[in-house]
Structure formats: C-alpha cells, structure tokens
C-alpha cells in the first residue's frame, strides 16, 4: 500500500501536466466546433467523440502508469499526448476525422498508437528493454522483410508505397531500424571509435559488415525512391556514430555522404531533383511544382502572429494539407505563436529523450534511446523545415500531428520504448543496480 501511495505521489507532475494538456486540447477543440456551429448550428453526439476519447485516454494513461508502478519519465508521455491531442484537433478541423463514418481507419489510429505505447512500456519496463539487444539482427530482418513486402505487394500513391488498408509499412521500419542501429553500435562501437591521426578509422571488418547490413534496407528504399526515409535514417546513423564514439569526424564523413547523395539524387531521382529545384526557385513555376510550397507559405502569411483561429482559416486550399503540410495549416490558424509553442513542445519531447539516453548506462539502452530520439527529432525538423521552405521538401510526416495511422502508431511505438528505457532497471532498488552498472562499464 505504501508503495502504491508513493507511486501516486511520484507521478504528481505527470498528473498536473496531463490536466493542463487536457484543458488546452479541450479549449482548442472548441475552436473548430464553434466555427462549424457558425455554419451549421447543430451538434451531434459524434462530434464530441474524438474529444471524449482523448480525455479518456489521459485518465487511462495515468491510471496505467500508477497501477503498474511505473517509475519512469513523467514529462515525456504527457507532452506526447499533448502533441497528439493537438494533432487530433487539427485533423478534426481538416475533416480527415470524418464524423459521418465512425468506422473509418483514421479514428482508430490515435487509440491504437496510445495502446501500443502503453503496452510496449508495460512489456519492456524494468530494464527488460535491454533484452531487445538480442533482436538486433532480427530487427534488421523485419525491416528488410517489410520493405520487400511493400515492394512486392504495395501500390504507389503520392510518391509513397502503401499496402492494403492504407497502411504504410515503411513507417514501421523506424523503430526496428533504431533497435538494429543501437545493437550494431553496441557491438562495433569500439571499432568505429578507432582513429588514425584524428581521422576515424574503423576496422575493415566492421565497415564491411556494416556496409552489407545497412546496404540491404537502403537498397530497398532506393528502389522505392523513398528519399525522405533514406535521409532520415542516414542522418540518425551519423549522429549516433558521433554520440557513441565521440568522434566528430563522422560528421565530416556525413557531409561528404550528403554531397554524394546529392549527386546521386540528381542522377537517378528525377523527382528528387525537381524538389531541389522547387526549393531554390519556387517562383519559377508557381502554378506547377511550386504550387504546394507556395500555397503553404501563403497560408502561413495569412496566419500572421496569432493565426485566424482553428476552423476560421482556409488551410484546405493547400494540397495534402492534412498530412505532410499540416504544419502550414497550423501556421495559418494558430499563427507563428502557435508554431513556436508546437516547436517547444517537440523540444521538450526531445529533451526528455536525450535525458533518458543520458541516464542509461553505456551500452545498448543508451544507444537505443538516442537513436529513437534522433529519429523523431530529425523527422520533425525535416518536415517543418520542408514546409517552411528552409530545406527542400522530403515528403516526410510530422510526428503525432500528420494524418496517417502508420506514422502515428510507429511514433507511439518509439515513445513506448523510450518510456520503457526511462524506467529504472530494478524498480526502486536503484542503488544496487547502479553499482552493478558501473561495474559493467
């Protein structure tokens, strides 16, 4: 009993944050509702279903953590739920969570992601997450199988490949690739840390092994022309190498790799080159290739500082506004202030992610936490940067906000793993475990 009470007290910050997040999302939800009411002054009970589900999930999350005596991070999950709640509101506003058809897939994406995160946390907490190290090669195999299945069975839509039911399996390789990268670097980290005269000089065996293993998913992604994911995975790989080995030379290597990739893009990916051209000269073809990015910027300009308010702008004129360009829609209706708040929320998530990584003992868990956080952070940066024209558009989604069930569930899966990592290995008996970890190091 005393333990339970202390968990209750221990998770007070989570409770407080969930309360504020819930209130903020509720207020946000009222905006598109009011806007709709201005046109059609009738409310149906279904209109409030997403909000009710969301509020329920906040209670469930907290209850789950308290009853399972979860001792991990208390800020990460409320913040992720806050972001997901904003995503839910914006999707309601964009009409992608259609009220007329409650059986639509989209309605189950957020609950599914939420459940996945809780289940994964429960399954992998108390240090059990470290057992994933044994699945390093299996994870790679799963990734390659997923990509292969997509290649064989998938159908192409808007440059991405989907399986039946609108599932985009390539989204799911992210957590598996994170496990693979973490496991691989745990194995070969020392090798990669070798330097000759300041230049990273990993052993030939390590490089060859890595090239073969990494080459398989990369080749499949190239075949699918999924440039965004290739970039995301490779940037994460480089950052992870730098973090694991402390050798900044890998960043130089990365710049060289980027140049090579750039050349490859120009030679082999006509749509990659097109995206690059649009980025440089959006006004060269304003009604064609530049249309989407310019419509997005136009939407943001109309938003100004404070935005028009959810439901009162016209973000639907932006092509694919609900998924890749959702950030522009938020820029229009919540203004640059809303965008800034959104960015800080993301940064809180990444800060917690890096803190979790930092609190891990050297080894697999540390690399896994870092890899998961980097994947999410780089993905967010690539999406927001692309929409604001700071970098070329890479066709990657905004975690927790963009429309798309696969992306949402996959991101929640990664958050679940991070949460599991944040849980101390042996519950409250921390002292002994820390000693044992130190001995390992």
């Amino acid at each position, binding site marked *: 009993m005393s333990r339970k009470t202390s968990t209750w007290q221990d998770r007070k*910050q989570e409770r407080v944050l969930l309360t*504020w*997040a819930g209130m*903020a999302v509720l*207020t*946000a939800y*009222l*905006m598109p509702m*009011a*806007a709709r009411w*201005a046109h059609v002054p009738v409310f149906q009970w279904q209109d409030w279903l997403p909000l009710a589900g969301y509020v329920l999930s906040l209670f469930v999350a907290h209850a789950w953590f308290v009853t399972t005596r979860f001792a991990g*991070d208390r*800020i990460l999950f*409320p913040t992720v739920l*806050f972001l997901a709640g904003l995503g839910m509101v914006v999707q309601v506003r964009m009409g992608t969570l259609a009220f007329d058809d409650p059986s639509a897939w989209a309605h189950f994406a957020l609950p599914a992601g939420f459940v996945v995160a809780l289940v994964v946390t429960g399954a992998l907490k108390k240090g059990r997450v470290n057992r994933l190290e044994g699945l390093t090669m299996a994870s790679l195999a799963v990734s390659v199988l997923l990509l292969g299945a997509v290649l064989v069975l998938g159908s192409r839509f808007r440059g991405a490949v989907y399986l039946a039911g609108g599932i985009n399996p390539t989204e799911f390789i992210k957590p598996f690739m994170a496990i693979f990268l973490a496991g691989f670097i745990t194995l070969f980290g020392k090798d990669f840390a070798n330097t000759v005269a300041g230049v990273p000089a990993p052993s030939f065996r390590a490089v060859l092994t890595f090239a073969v293993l990494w080459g398989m998913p990369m080749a499949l992604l190239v075949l699918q022309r999924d440039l965004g994911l290739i970039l995301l995975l490779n940037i994460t790989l480089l950052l992870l190498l*730098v*973090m694991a080995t*402390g050798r900044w030379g890998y960043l130089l290597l990365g710049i060289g790799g980027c140049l090579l990739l750039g050349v490859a893009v120009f030679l082999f990916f006509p749509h990659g080159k097109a995206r690059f051209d649009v980025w440089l000269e959006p*006004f060269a073809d*304003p009604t064609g290739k530049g*249309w989407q990015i310019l*419509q997005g*910027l*136009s939407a*943001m*300009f*109309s938003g*100004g*500082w*404070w935005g028009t*308010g*959810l439901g*009162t702008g*016209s973000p639907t*004129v932006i092509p694919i506004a609900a998924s890749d360009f959702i950030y522009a829609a938020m*820029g229009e209706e919540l203004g*640059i202030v*809303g*965008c*800034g*708040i959104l*960015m*800080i*929320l993301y*940064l*809180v998530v990444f*800060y917690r992610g890096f*803190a979790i*990584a*930092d*609190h891990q003992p050297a080894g697999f868990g540390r690399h896994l936490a*870092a890899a998961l956080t980097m994947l999410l*952070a780089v993905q967010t*940066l690539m999406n*927001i*940067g692309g929409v*604001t*024209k*700071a970098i070329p558009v890479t066709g990657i989604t905004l975690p927790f906000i963009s429309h798309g069930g696969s992306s949402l569930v996959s991101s929640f899966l990664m958050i679940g793993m991070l949460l599991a990592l944040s849980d101390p290995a042996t519950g409250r008996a*921390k002292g002994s475990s820390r000693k044992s970890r130190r001995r390992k190091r």
Partner: protein
Amino acid sequence: MTSFLEQPDNPAAWIGLCKAVFFLLCVVYLWKAVRKTETGRRTGRTRSRAYRMLFAVFCVLFGAVLVYQATWQLAGFARPDFVAFMERYDKRPVNPARDVQRGRITDRRGVPLAVDRNDPLRPRAYPEGPVFAHVTGYLDERYGRTGLEEADHAYLSGYGFESGDSWKQFGRNMFDRKEIRGSDLVLTLDAGLQRIAYELMKERTGAVVMLDPRNGAVLVMVSTPSFDPNNLQPALFRADPDRAPLLNRALQGLYPPGSTVKPLVAAIALGRNLRPVYDCPAAGITAGTGNQPIRDHEYYQYRKDGKVWPGHGRLDMREALQKSSNVYFARLGLDLGGAALTGRLETMGLNGRWTVFRGSSGEIRTSAGSVPPLNDDDKARTAQVAIGQGALVVTPMHMALLAGAIGRGGAAWRPRLAEREPPEPLNPLMPAEAARTLTGMMRDAVHRGTGIGADIPGLRVAGKTGTAQTPRGDDHSWFICFAPAEDPVIAMAVIVEHGGYGSRSAVPVTAELLRAAEKAGYFRAASEGQP
C-alpha cells in the same frame, strides 16, 4: 477579446477567446513541464556534454527554422514575388496580400501617376491616363506588367531598404499589416509640362523629350499615339504597326535624324580644327558615280514654283548650319571621310545604349541609335550619313542628350527617370571648344535661320531643325534645341512623324513647350541655381 464581450452571439469572438485561453494554457503547460525536470535529481549524475550539445544543436536548428518561417509568415510582404503570387493565386475569401499596398509612382512634385486601387483584377489606377502611359507602363491582371511597373516591381510592391526609416516601417508592418505600403517611386518628370507636350502631340505621331542637361533628369518624355493604361483592350495589342501605340517612340523610335545631324558633323569637323568654306552650287554634289546628286531643299522649292534657284554660292560653316545646306555638309562629310565620320559618331554614343532607369526588378534602356561602319571609299553612303539620311538612325532621347551636350560644352549626363538615382556623368561627347563654337552657330540657326519659330524673346534658344526623308508619306519633322544658349537648363528633341519641314511641325511644338517651361519657372531659376 473585447469583441467577445460586445458580441456574445458572434462565433468568431468565441473562437478568438478560445484561442487566447488555449495559448495561455499552453504557456502554463510548458512552464510546468520545463520548470521541474528530472535531470540529475534521480540519478545524481551530471549529464554528458555530448547530449547537451546535441540538444542545443537541435534547439538552434528549430529556432533557425522558426526565424526563417517568420520571414514568410510575418515579413512575407517584403518578398515581392511572394506578394504577387498571393495576389494572383491565393483563393482565400480575403486575400492575405490585401493589405499590401503598392507604392505610388509620382512626378517630381508628387503628382500621382500610378496609384493602388485595392482590386486584384485591376490593381492600378493611372490618374493621368494616356499622358504617362509609356513612362509608367501598366500593371494588369490579364496583360502583366510593363514600363516602370515592371522595372521597379520589387521596390513598388515590397521594400527597398535604402533608408533607416524604411527599416522602422518594416518593423511596424510586422505587427500591423494595415500600414503595409510599397515604396513610392518619384520620377524626375514634370507632370505639368508632360501634359502640355501630350496635348500638343496627341493628334500627331511622334515623340518629345525634354531633359535637364545639367544632370540628365528627364523632364518630359511623350510618345504618341498613346493608350490608356486604365482601360487596356485586346485591340490595343493588335493595333496596326504604323500606329503602334504601345511603342515608346521617345526611347525606341529609330528615325533618320535628317538635318539635326549637321551640328554633330560640324562638331566633328571643329574638333579637327576644320572649318572650311565650300562653294555650294544649285547642281549639288554627287558622291560616287551614278548616284543622284545631293541638293539643297531650296532647289526643289524653286523648281516647284517653276523658278530656277541660283544656289547658295560660297558658304562658311555658320551660314551652312543656319541655312541647313545639304551640299555643304555632304562635302564636309566627304572631306572628313567615312571612317572618321562614323567613328566620331560612335564616340557620341551611337551604336550604344543608355540605361535611363535602374530598377529593383529590371532596367529600362534606350538605344542611342545606329550608324553602320563606313570606310573612306564609301563616298555615297558617307555623304548620306553626313546629311542625316541613309543607314543612320537615332532615338529622340539620344538627340535630346546630344543637344544638351552641345549646350554644356560637350559634357553629358546619363539620362535618368528616377529622382533617387544620382546624376551620373558620361564621357565628354565632344571637345569643349567645338561645342562652344557650335552653340553660337545653333543660336544663329534659331535667331536668323530655319528655327526662327522657336526664337522666344528672352530665352535665347539655340537649336537645329531637321527634315528626314521617309520612303513613303511626308518627311519627318525634327527639332533639337537647348536654352538659354550660354547656360542651358533645358534640352529638347521633338519629332513629328510625317510632319513635313522641321520648321513646320516640330518647331511650333517646341516653342509652345518652351513657353510652358518658362511659365513653370525653369528659366527664372536658371540664374539662381536649381528650380
């Protein structure tokens, strides 16, 4: 917020209230999340520097993206291409670029020549109608942009950060878009004189250029026939090539200069200390065997009246210029030789181009004219060029510039349309001594010669008429002049297509315009400095 209290029925007010509360709750959330982090407390270990740095890098990157986003979201009005895109292609019920007012184009005294209309279909109004059509050009949803509207598009629709003041304005506009305005473009032109020039020319075809030879400021630039930029019709763009109302004849009209080239030939000769006296018989001069002789116009006049003209006899340069003797200048041209003649004309700017306006989005340039390279054996063509015929063509702008250069001792300034462009000296077009001698001769040509119609008492006009033969129809009528002769403040070139003798059409137009300039105070101020 207050609107919500005033109008509780208005959903927009409720949405505004929700938004404010939402932002407030977000801030509270962030405060609660950031204030008390678990860092260090749980494990007692200090955080590793590498992860702190990595997180800092991400913070910087996100911050940079947000700042870059702000250059579109908050300061997008300063991106002219972007504003143009939104005006044209944004389908929002209220166009986000609605507040961005395009700057005005005004004359030197602030008379508006082009103003914003706040209508995406017809964004501009041109209060002067056809008078300034060729100067301002037009801005139209269907027909695009031309003239200054095109060349200075960025400056007019966005911001030209020339002064600290516009930065301040920029900062204000980030917070209040109601005041967003492009910069005003102030021209050197004088709307009053331009109107008079247009009135004089509107029934004819031709061009008038008046500039200040002391600094190159263009005061009048009229081209007729003109068009109304307020009312563009498809027919305008199909008009027959003879009328060509869209053509700015002042800058782009290439005309044979006729006798107005004679001062230039004289200047070339004077520059070589050549001041011959020639016998100029009625029979004229035949350059190259088998060609028609070049005769003076009196010969044809007498023949028409059934009389026989005895010829000028011996003429010196002063008399020849005064009487505009073709025979004299044909001989002079032959004596100078084709190579020297065309070479020196080139140093006077022919075959070159002037940039009359350097805008934020482009330039407005004018051809000076062209002269083919001749060698000394090509006597027939040399003689033709020396009397302003044949392959030699010039633009009215360049003739005004040359007239001014003669008056100012050979010194010339780049012609310019915008006040903001500083005067820019050109290389001297002719030796000062030759220009001074020539000034006296041109004063005589007005005082006692063919240009007497422009001899307005007190103004001491110096000039030269010209009659350019054309393949069909009446001759083109030219007049170039500057005044006052000793210290000119005005230089002009007028061409009336098919206007007959220079003295018949171009001179009266010039005289009228000079009187108007006198009334406007241009000559009064000459002795006191700038007007």
